[in-house]
């Protein structure tokens, strides 16, 4: 039987052993990590799985330009801003939703883009490219990249007739079968559209709140990412839910789910994303080349046809898609643009107000 003194010795030995091991391992790890960075690196900040990190694309880009693409990700726009604020001089290219570009420029987190260096500039749709959301003071702060629609989608196996109105989300026939995105701005926007108001500036917020509270018998659960949405639909957690156009295309094509996207007669939320260049970007040259590549038809067509993507801001790229592509059929449908309410920039105070409203609604919904 081992005595206490044997144990004492082995405790001490183990302690020392682990300490040394841990220290060595950490040193080795840090040396490994340090060796990875190099001068020709291009740092990109984006959502994960949102085009810029497609393996074939970064490989092609590196072969052509010698710039190695290194990614860092965020899970919300607010997080993206926090990362820009707390990591100065780290990032080159940043994906910023057009509703946030002005605020980022004002806070001097991004720099003006020299559009004369972009070969695809002339082919971009002027409505998005020259939008005041991306251009201020005669300078361009964001390169319009992709655009999409936020509306709702449904499971075609469960629901046989296509709903044409946004009120379908409040239809008692679908009680307990509705999914909803957990986002204050989107929630308020849906509430506004459903009560006939402007989603960017609802006149009667109280009416919006009441409409959202009426979701109580309808909602089963919230979702906040495309992947969650797919899994919920797959598992039968909901049959009809708010969703994004590009994601609906992907769910249908890549995941083979029975999904149909609806843009109701009352209208839907439009949005577009821009590629911006961070202030004090360490690799400006590579950054400009990269964003030029991203809006090119060459990249876009392959991206949409192999993986599925939102609609391109480059008319030429859109036109190069196969005739039955989602982005040509659904997004190119006549009369669509008139029904869209594009997401406008919001002030910090407006955002706080909407957030508080949504939080109090969620509290009620949870009772």
């Amino acid at each position, binding site marked *: 039987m081992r005595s206490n003194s044997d144990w004492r010795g082995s405790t001490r030995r183990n302690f020392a052993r682990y300490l040394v091991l841990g220290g060595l391992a950490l040193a080795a790890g840090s040396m490994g990590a340090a060796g990875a960075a190099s001068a020709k690196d291009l740092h990109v900040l984006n959502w994960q799985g949102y085009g810029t990190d497609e393996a074939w694309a970064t490989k092609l880009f590196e072969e052509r330009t010698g710039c190695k693409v290194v990614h860092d990700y965020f899970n*919300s726009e*607010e*997080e993206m801003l926090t990362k820009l604020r707390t990591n100065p001089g780290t990032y080159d290219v940043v994906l910023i939703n057009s509703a946030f570009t002005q605020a980022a420029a004002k806070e001097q987190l991004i720099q003006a883009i020299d559009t004369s260096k972009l070969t695809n500039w002339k082919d971009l749709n002027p409505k998005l490219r020259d939008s005041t959301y991306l251009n201020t003071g005669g300078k361009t702060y964001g390169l319009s990249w992709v655009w999409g629609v936020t509306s709702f989608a449904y499971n075609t196996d469960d629901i046989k007739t296509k709903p044409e109105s946004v009120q379908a989300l409040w239809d008692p026939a679908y009680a307990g079968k509705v999914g909803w995105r957990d986002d*204050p701005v989107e929630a308020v926007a849906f509430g506004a559209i459903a009560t006939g108001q402007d989603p960017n500036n609802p006149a009667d917020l109280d009416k919006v709140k009441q409409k959202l509270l009426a979701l109580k018998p309808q*909602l089963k659960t*919230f979702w906040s990412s495309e992947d969650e949405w797919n899994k919920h639909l797959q598992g039968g957690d909901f049959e009809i839910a708010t969703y994004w156009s590009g994601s609906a295309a992907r769910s249908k094509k890549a995941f083979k789910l029975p999904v149909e996207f609806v843009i109701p007669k009352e209208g839907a939320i439009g949005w577009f994303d821009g590629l911006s260049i961070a202030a004090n970007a360490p690799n400006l040259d590579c950054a400009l080349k990269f964003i030029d590549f991203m809006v090119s038809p060459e990249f876009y067509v392959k991206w949409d046809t192999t993986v599925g993507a939102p609609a391109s801001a480059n008319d030429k790229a859109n036109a190069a898609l196969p005739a039955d592509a989602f982005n040509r059929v659904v997004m190119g449908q006549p009369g669509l643009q008139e029904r869209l309410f594009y997401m406008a920039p919001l002030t910090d105070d407006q955002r706080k107000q909407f957030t508080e409203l949504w*939080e109090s609604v969620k509290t*009620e919904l*949870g*009772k």
Partner: protein
Amino acid sequence: MSASRHSASGSAASRRRWAVIGLTGPAYLWLAFTVLLPLSAMLYFSFLTVAPIGARVAEPTLGNYLDYFRKGFYLTLTGRSLWLGVWVTVLCLLLGFPAALALAKYVKGRWREALFLLVVLPFWSNALVRTFSWTMVLRSDGMLDNALQAVFPGLPHLDIMFTFTAVVIGLVHSFLPYMILTCYISLQAIDDSLLEAARSLGAAGPTVFRRIVLPLSMPGILAGTILIFVPVIGSFMEPRILGGRGGFMLGNVIEDQFTVVFNWPLGAALSFILLAIVLLILAAFYPLLRRNLQGLA
């Protein structure tokens, strides 16, 4: 070294003081620099209108703290989070203590170590993957539902997914090992001869338990309670995934102030209110704790 026994009491006292500083110093220096200092900055922010970053002008205000009482839903959420904390902690205690007792006193030899380690192992699985696995078990037409249907065909489908119950199950599962382990290390320290002596003096099983085992295992129970209750009331991931519509907790609101909207002062204020609540609860129970732990030191 032996001279210490002969030296004046002043020198022994100073030696003791150095021992205390030497022992607590490193840990607290580390904590001060990495946690307490940054949190002081956050505490300062909580009294401002906006975080003073990016050339924003911030003004002092008590608004963030007052809003907590003015806007009813914060109080509702706090109540909900506390209720969740109580449920999970009590269940962990009721379920975990007997398991710890079994492990400490009724399992012998090498088995004990092996089982002890097996209890710890689930800790090392990723919380998200675990929680997601629970959704597969608990959802309607999920594994549990199918198992029940197989045994009792014709039973109505299980509907506990996206409810408070599902959240409790998920959290109890995540935190149960804490209670089992802390109770185990206390129970295991109780000398068997103490229990034998009590029995030989005529004490029956329940009496031995109530008057010897329970008081001596109090430190373990207490440690487990703290390590479970405190994180649970601030939790947001399991409530979100398992609670669906009803999964909105105080932790989610705090998170929102950093990930959805740029309102660090409010997030900070809510966190410190949470901390204050925890300390208040502790202070309320302090006399009870003191009495229970007195016989030990």
